[in-house]
């Protein structure tokens, strides 16, 4: 009996998962079709680029400085644990690769998932439960074109920009710790970064950011459009958007890492 019940539960969850994937795929297709509309209504895109990109800069700055700083400190500690050689020549290179490949895109993605993905779901969810989405429909305005298109496009354009910015700021954070606390000179630190620098690492971070940014915005829109149940429903939608986006980022990070490296 327990096994039957377990199978039943798993079956329902599997159906739910595939339905969500289906909803996202349909929305992606519709958003893609709405590109010509977006080209005619560039102000909608600009507004979202401001919200998702420019307004995220302060948070990205703080997180990036400390991500770089802690990476430098932890790398130094771990190098000391595993080798008796001097870490001076490798610290910059090691920290830089970690920032470019993993830390900046993944942490940037999680920040956008928390700040923008959840906010998109809450905003569109509120519009849904207060009939504002229906009002758009009655005014002959397609909500997918008007609301989802600009958010999705701003997501995949702005996260890579934020990631490149985060790459720079994180390097400065790492350098500050290396120079002030670990006694590594500027030339040693950046010399190490430069010697082992690969443009491919930067490109892979940008590719990840495009997928994380677009995916996060799309998940927020999809959940927002299907919100039901008043204020409580909006609360659940916000949580779901963050949880799904975070899971998407971490899973896709692994998938992309196995493809790109």
């Amino acid at each position, binding site marked *: 009996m327990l096994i039957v019940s377990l199978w039943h539960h798993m079956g329902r969850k599997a159906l739910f998962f595939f339905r969500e994937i289906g909803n996202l795929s349909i929305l992606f297709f519709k958003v893609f079709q709405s590109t010509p509309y977006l080209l005619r209504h560039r102000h909608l895109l600009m507004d979202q680029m401001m919200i998702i990109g420019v307004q995220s800069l302060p948070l990205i700055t703080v997180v990036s400085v400390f991500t770089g700083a802690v990476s430098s400190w932890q790398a130094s500690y771990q190098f000391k644990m595993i080798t008796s050689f001097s870490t001076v020549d490798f610290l910059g290179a090691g920290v830089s690769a970690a920032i470019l490949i993993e830390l900046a895109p993944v942490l940037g993605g999680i920040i956008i998932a928390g700040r923008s993905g959840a906010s998109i779901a809450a905003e569109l969810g509120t519009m849904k439960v207060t009939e504002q989405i229906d009002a758009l*429909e*009655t005014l002959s305005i397609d909500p997918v074109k008007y609301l989802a298109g600009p958010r999705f496009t701003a997501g995949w354009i702005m996260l890579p920009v934020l990631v490149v910015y985060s790459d720079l700021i994180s390097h400065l954070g790492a350098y500050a710790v290396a120079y002030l606390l670990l006694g590594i000179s500027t030339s040693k630190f950046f010399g190490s970064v430069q010697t082992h620098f690969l443009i491919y690492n930067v490109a892979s971070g940008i590719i990840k950011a495009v997928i994380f940014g677009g995916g996060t915005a799309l998940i927020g829109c999809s959940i927002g459009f299907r919100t039901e149940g008043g204020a409580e429903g909006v609360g659940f939608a916000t949580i779901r958007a963050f949880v799904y986006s975070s899971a998407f980022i971490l899973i896709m990070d692994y998938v992309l890492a196995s493809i790109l490296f």
Partner: protein
Amino acid sequence: MIEIRNVQKEFNKKPVLRQVSLDIPDGETMVVIGKSGCGKTVLLKSIIGLIKPDSGKILVDGKDIIRMKPRDLYAVRKHFGMLFQGAALFDSMTVEENVGLPLREHTLLDPAAIRKKVEEKLELVGLTNLLGKKPSELSGGMKKRVGLARALAMEPKYMLYDEPTTGLDPITSDTINRLIVQMNRKLNMTAVAVTHDMDSASVIGDRVAMLHEGSVFFNGTADEFFKSKIPIVRRFREGRLEEEEE
């Protein structure tokens, strides 16, 4: 003309509309009344294609909107205006942006011409000097009027009103009712209004249809409705739970 033919709709296997058929001739205002949850709003939203019935036909100027492609449906909707129960104004926009949105989207008017049209529509509903206000700064009655101005922006042929006076005080309700009558006559619109406010029904309705358990229980002129001696109609009209002995 709007023709509703044998429309059925279920939610979670619970029938909400059962074989509903109604005709709304051009230039008339049909008031749809009935208890809460009897399917009035579902019917109204079906007329504009926000809800897709399971079966039946909804003909607008002879075209069945249920089987229309989305692009054609959006074209038909340009002939409709809808006033929502809670006005459904866009929170992030000012009054001017709310009323001007359909004009910005569907016309080639320049910003000055749009502003002029917005002012005209707001004046029509008795509002001035509110262009820069956000919906959160407006009273319930003002929101309804702005919602009405927005619905009128494209000068629609058909107008749908969802509980136009719900949540308003009697004086504001009366103002909204008179405004609706004035608009419908002035612009010669065909209208469907969903309400359970009898005062509203008596002021704005040319015809009244009563929904009961998902079906059309009564369909006649407003005069016939208010004189009807059918027990269910009388009880609803007088707001009584059971027929009292006389």
